[in-house]
């Protein structure tokens, strides 16, 4: 969907809240996936998705387009809810990485599909991602899964584009190290 089409939908929803359903249908899958990837729990993801859209509907009149698309604004709401969720669950159990497992990296990572073809390596990569801090996990979802630009991600996380580039770089290095060393600690200091 182009920016113009999205803008038209937003204007329609602002004029008549009952037109919000179009925006909902457009983004519900992505917002749910975003929450699910953070919580790893369907019930939690559904709850956070509901709250995201309720909040968006109630504060739609306050939305002002300032260069960033509506999508970034919606993700910003979702992100704030996720941050609160992490805060509420500070004592959540962490997934441990098996330190005796063999190294993950195949030479040059030229064929990731082949590399993640075995259940062991798949699980290892999942564990590595699961252990990432919240902002890096968000970055991975928005960058890799939702293919958002750095500017849009900056809008979501409330940071500058330069900061996002730096965070992206650090995240890549963390992932690369963890995948190549096997038991790398990806929870590196920010």
């Amino acid at each position, binding site marked *: 969907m182009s920016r113009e089409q999205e803008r038209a939908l937003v204007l329609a929803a602002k004029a008549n809240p009952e037109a919000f359903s179009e925006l909902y249908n457009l983004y519900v899958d992505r917002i749910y996936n975003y929450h699910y990837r953070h919580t790893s729990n369907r019930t939690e993801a559904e709850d956070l*998705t509901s709250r995201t*859209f309720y909040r968006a509907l109630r504060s739609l009149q306050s939305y002002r387009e300032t260069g960033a698309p509506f999508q970034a604004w919606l993700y910003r709401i979702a992100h704030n809810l996720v941050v609160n969720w992490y805060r509420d669950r500070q004592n959540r159990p962490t997934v441990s990485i098996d330190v005796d497992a063999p190294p993950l990296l195949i030479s040059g990572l030229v064929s990731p599909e082949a590399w*993640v073809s075995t259940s062991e390596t798949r699980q290892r990569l999942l564990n590595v991602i699961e252990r990432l801090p919240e902002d890096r996990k968000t970055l991975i979802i928005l960058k890799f899964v939702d293919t958002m630009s750095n500017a849009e991600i900056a809008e979501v996380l409330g940071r500058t584009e330069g900061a996002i580039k730096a965070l992206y770089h650090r995240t*890549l290095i963390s992932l690369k190290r963890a995948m190549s060393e096997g038991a790398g600690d990806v929870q590196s200091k920010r």
Partner: protein
Amino acid sequence: MFSRSGKRYVVLQEYVPLKQQRAIARAVVTVWPRIRPSRAFVDQLSRDLATEAHRQVIAHHSKGDRTLNFLGLFSGGVLSVVGGLAIWLLVQRDQDKAGNAPLNPSQPASRATAA
């Protein structure tokens, strides 16, 4: 002659080549595909949001009605006060005219005052 240096170099910035960046991205997407919500959840939330939107529309209209009522009452009050003031001023002016009227109707009022 080649001699091994005793210096140790610190890598200031580790670089991830573009090819590896793409490989990492593809690997992440492969193990982390998009998860879709259940149809039942999507439909239920859609209905709930529609109800909420409808409630907002009604609330907006009733708010508009309340605003109109308030404006009507307020402007009516202001007009009443202004009208009252205007009548009072007119009455005062008439009374002033009556008070300044000459004793002898044939003499102008100014002369009577000067005398």
